[in-house]
């Protein structure tokens, strides 16, 4: 029971902090409008990873003293808690019922979201592997004998391009080159793996739908630019339209209709390119995470006690 009360207390304490941080980070998303696709990728990646990293950091900080006491009993901080309440894996936490319910709800929501994301990723891998088994692989491009408009980069272990025979046959040669250059750019940059990692990170963080959509837009724009650099923006535009036409043909269970995404990309490819501003958002976030990690390693007890102070304020 004491461990359960600790877990519920941590849920009630940590997740609201993460929700607050995610909400405060959201306005930074507006900055992407002035950035190049690679910089937008960095910014959105940082915004998606930050709540997940902060979650792990907070969980680690709060649980650290209890776990360290297992290795070195002299690190046990369970004595001398006169001034504030005690958060401990072994002795539990003072937990009013209303906070227990909040903790349980927070863990449940996060657990469901993480499970759903993991199942989605497993299904993507399964479908990708099954299609690859039916196709013919040549230089990281697998041609699948399908009449659907399939042109995807997939694969967590072995990133590759899946392209259907219909796409191979229906696109003009320069359009096909453009489509394959676009997908090869995804494979080269490991976008399927990033997509998987960020899908899991997004499951931890609230409001992640908008950030994830912005990350996808940025990744597609970057791949469009890579293809346009070798094949020309017009060929890429025509390839997008040709594959979208194939997707119009009857097929059970197609995705949501979001024509504005396609229109935006075509207009962008046809427009003259302004020189975009750069960003170091991802490197900045990673540096901050590293410094935070070092700081926590050094002063985790202080942070742990700060969490206990916060808990005391909530409960009393």
């Amino acid at each position, binding site marked *: 029971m004491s461990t359960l009360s600790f877990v519920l207390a941590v849920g009630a304490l940590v997740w609201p902090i993460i929700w607050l941080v995610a909400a405060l980070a959201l306005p930074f998303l507006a900055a992407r409008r002035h950035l190049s696709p690679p910089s937008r990728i960095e910014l959105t990646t940082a915004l998606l990873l930050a709540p997940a990293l902060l979650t792990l950091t907070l969980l680690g900080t709060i649980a650290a003293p209890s776990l360290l006491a297992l290795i070195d009993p002299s690190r046990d901080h369970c004595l001398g808690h006169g001034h504030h309440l005690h958060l401990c894996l072994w002795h539990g936490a003072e937990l009013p019922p209303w906070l227990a319910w909040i903790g349980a709800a927070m863990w449940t929501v996060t657990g469901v979201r993480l499970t759903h994301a993991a199942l989605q990723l497993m299904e*993507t891998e399964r479908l990708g592997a099954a299609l690859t088994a*039916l196709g013919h692989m040549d230089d990281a491009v697998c041609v699948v004998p399908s009449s659907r408009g399939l042109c*995807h980069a*997939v694969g967590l272990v072995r990133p590759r391009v899946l392209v259907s025979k219909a796409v191979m046959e229906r696109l003009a040669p320069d359009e096909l080159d453009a489509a394959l250059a676009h997908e090869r750019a*995804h494979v080269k940059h490991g976008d399927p793996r990033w997509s998987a990692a960020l899908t899991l990170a997004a499951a931890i963080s609230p409001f992640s739908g908008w950030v994830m959509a912005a990350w996808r837009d940025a990744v597609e724009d970057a791949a469009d630019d890579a293809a346009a650099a070798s094949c020309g923006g017009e060929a890429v535009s025509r390839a997008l*339209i040709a594959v979208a036409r194939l997707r119009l043909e009857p097929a059970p*269970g197609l*995705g949501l209709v979001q024509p504005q995404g*396609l229109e935006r990309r075509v207009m962008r490819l*046809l427009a003259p390119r302004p020189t975009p501003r750069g960003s170091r958002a991802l490197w900045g976030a990673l540096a901050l995470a590293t410094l935070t990690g070092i700081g926590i390693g050094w002063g985790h007890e202080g942070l742990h006690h700060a969490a206990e102070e916060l808990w005391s304020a909530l409960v009393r």
Partner: protein
Amino acid sequence: MSHLGELEQVVMEAVWAHPPSTVREIADRMRGDADRAYTTVMTTLDRLHRKGLLRREKDGLAWRYDAAMSRAEHERLVADALASALLAHGDAGLAALVDASADGALLDRLEALIAARRGHP
């Protein structure tokens, strides 16, 4: 169209290799590494017949099975089903050239725009 199980795939391969065949002929061909009981092969053939992948007609007392479609046609149907599932599945863990379907009017308009730009660079 579902993906075939391991035994179903082996039986379909045997039928595609020597159509049309009886249960006994297929079971005899499958002897060796993947030795299967006669009744197992018979059940699998019956299941494939009910799935519409095999046709059959009486040959004396036995059924003679033939493939309802060629191996290439079957692979295309399976690939279409898997591709449709992938297209409908969402975008976790992958990147798509076009992430959603658009309406024909928009595609016509975008094509006209490209053609117009080509005329007036």
